[in-house]
């Protein structure tokens, strides 16, 4: 197994793109994930059965595995257990339609690094993959910014074009999160979990998020010709300099 890990490390510098294995039997979902992730700059391989995935993993190094739990033949959980028994260290993001705590516990206990409940938002998948690939590594930056918007994490000062902007605590956290993931779509789910720290997303919470986004927009974008906070309809929000 050590040889495998080493070879994996060796391949990394050669090809810049991280390699993702998608194990999903539903062809539509699999090809959507492939196309979407390739669009995000990943090198994506798709397998439709657990057996094929195991064979593929033995010969081919990957940086992250997306594993559906409900697979024909050998199901995802068995694949995962086998993988971990054989010493594979590759991070695994489990995709499941079963939304119960027990499944989550068994998923994480059997070696999953993270899980997503179907139907998941694609931006959510991207965010999780990014998190898995960057695990442990923190940016440690004290200043964040995009265009003429600047945020000082130490003094908690926010300025746009030199003009100081007063933000509430929640608005500050929201903007900080958007800045950290600049040019990426952030879903309401992600915001509910990471900014509001709520266990479940609800309609009222969505409304609260929307109101905060609206206020942030008023404070940051209202007087400027370039709108930084953009709404991606049906998906989420994004902080970006150029209009998409």
């Amino acid at each position: 197994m050590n040889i495998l890990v080493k070879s994996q490390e060796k391949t990394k510098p050669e090809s810049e793109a991280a390699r993702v294995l998608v194990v999903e039997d539903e062809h539509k979902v699999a090809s959507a994930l492939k196309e979407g992730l390739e669009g995000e700059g990943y090198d994506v391989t798709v397998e439709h059965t657990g057996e094929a995935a195991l064979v593929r993993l033995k010969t081919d190094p990957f940086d992250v595995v997306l594993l559906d739990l409900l697979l024909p033949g050998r199901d995802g959980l068995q694949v995962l257990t086998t993988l971990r028994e054989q010493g594979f260290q590759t991070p695994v993001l489990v995709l499941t339609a079963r939304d119960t705590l027990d499944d989550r516990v068994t998923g994480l206990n059997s070696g999953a690094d993270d899980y997503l409940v179907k139907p998941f938002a694609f931006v959510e998948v991207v965010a999780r993959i990014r998190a898995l690939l960057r695990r442990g590594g923190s940016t440690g930056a004290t200043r964040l910014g995009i265009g003429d918007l600047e945020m000082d994490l130490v003094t908690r000062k926010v300025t746009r074009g030199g003009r100081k902007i007063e933000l509430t605590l929640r608005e500050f956290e929201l903007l900080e999160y958007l800045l950290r993931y600049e040019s990426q779509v952030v879903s309401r789910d992600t915001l509910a979990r990471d900014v509001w720290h709520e266990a479940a997303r609800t309609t009222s919470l969505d409304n609260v998020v929307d109101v905060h986004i609206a206020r942030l927009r008023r404070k940051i974008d209202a007087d400027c010709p370039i709108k930084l906070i953009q709404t991606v309809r049906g998906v989420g929000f994004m902080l970006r300099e150029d209009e998409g």
Partner: protein
Amino acid sequence: MLTWLRSHSLRISLTFWNVAAMIVVLAVYATGVYIFVSRNASNSLDTEIRYDYQWAAAMADQLPDGSLRWFEEESSFGSNTPWLQVWCTDDAGCGASSNRGEVIYRTTKAEVDPLPEAEKLLTQSGDAIVSIPAEDTTYRVLTSPTTLRFYDRAGQPVSNKRVIIQVARSELLMRDEMRGLLLILLLGLPIGVVAAGIFGYSLARRALAPIERMAEHAQSITADRLHDRLPIGNPKNELGRLASVFNETLGRLEESFEQMRRFTADVSHELRTPLTAIRSVGEVGLRERRDEKAYRGIIGSMLEEVDRLASLVDRLLRWSRAETGQTKLAQEVIDLRELAEDVAGHLGVLAEEKQQLLTVEQAGSPRGIGDRQVLRQALIDLVDNAIKYTPAGGRIRVRVAEMAAGVTIDVIDNGPGIPPELRSGIFSRYERGGQAPFGPIGGTGLGLSISRWAVEANGGTLTLEPDQGVGSTFRITLPRATKVARPPAERARPTNAA
């Protein structure tokens, strides 16, 4: 044996036990009868022998020559003349030629069936009855000395003669009778057992027939015929009780089936709305060529509906998990004011957007017991509803108080209120009060029924307070936390110290 019985029907095993009991009873009874009858027969044989003995003494007559003679009343005995021997004793003359130890008289029977052993009995004292085996039977012999007294015509005693009278009777007759009895008893036993078996079987059949009918009837009750009930014969007996218990079970089953059917219908209705939107938006979008921006709008709109669909499925799952009791609740002390302020802070922005005044009022410092997370969501839903249904510029108050019944959280708004015809159904699934006079209102109708479940699962109540003329008031009542609040784990555990 027992395993064999277990593998057979109740009817068979009942019959088996019935027969077994019958065999035991009959055997004990027959033995008792046999012993009683044989003792009786033996006693009455002895009585007869003693009677014969007395008769023999009375039947003696003295001839003029001093010898003795016996009347033999053939007519009165017929062939059944007793076996009788009279022996002479030494102290009295038995006749000219008679010696001691000589038989001076014997009946025909005694001549026909001589008992050589009888002579030995002469020396025996007392008057015990002795059994002597003979050729084909056993004789019972009574040997006893007696004094015969003779009188003349004037009634004066003439002479006394001492003799030994020996009477005997064969046990043949008694043995025959006993054999007959034994035969009857032995024949009767199997007949009785067979009769008991048949009777027991038919009795078991009759007793179990209602159960069989019940089983047949129950078998015919399927999911489509759940309204059907078992007939209750006599509600006081065991079968009647069984039937009524079964009917109660059927009732509950029917109710939950009905609930499920309604649920499925409601859910498919709820799911259809976003699905229809997705389909029509997509179809219409494809009808003509558009620019990229328009397509983006269409796809975005479809995704919004997908989002709605996903959150609906999420809610349904949560609701069904709650309904089936899969959600485990914590028991913790909740500071209601703190909870109300948390919720007000959380939703404050929504009220602000509508220029509504959202305030928390407090009377005392009420502390309740329950699962904070679940109750918080219920309160969020209530306040969110109030914000939605109260027009802009309205006022929403969250009031926490301590009451006699427990601790309460009131959500009071000054909106349009709930029309009387909707008040009763407000907590049932999929009903929404105040249908949109202020434009379309999002969310599904599950809200209030989930909130009610959440509160009730925590041992509280969620009620709609009587109409005050303006707005509406929802009240959550929770059990009060005791003054000395112990950690929840402590309370859940059974205490050893009494």
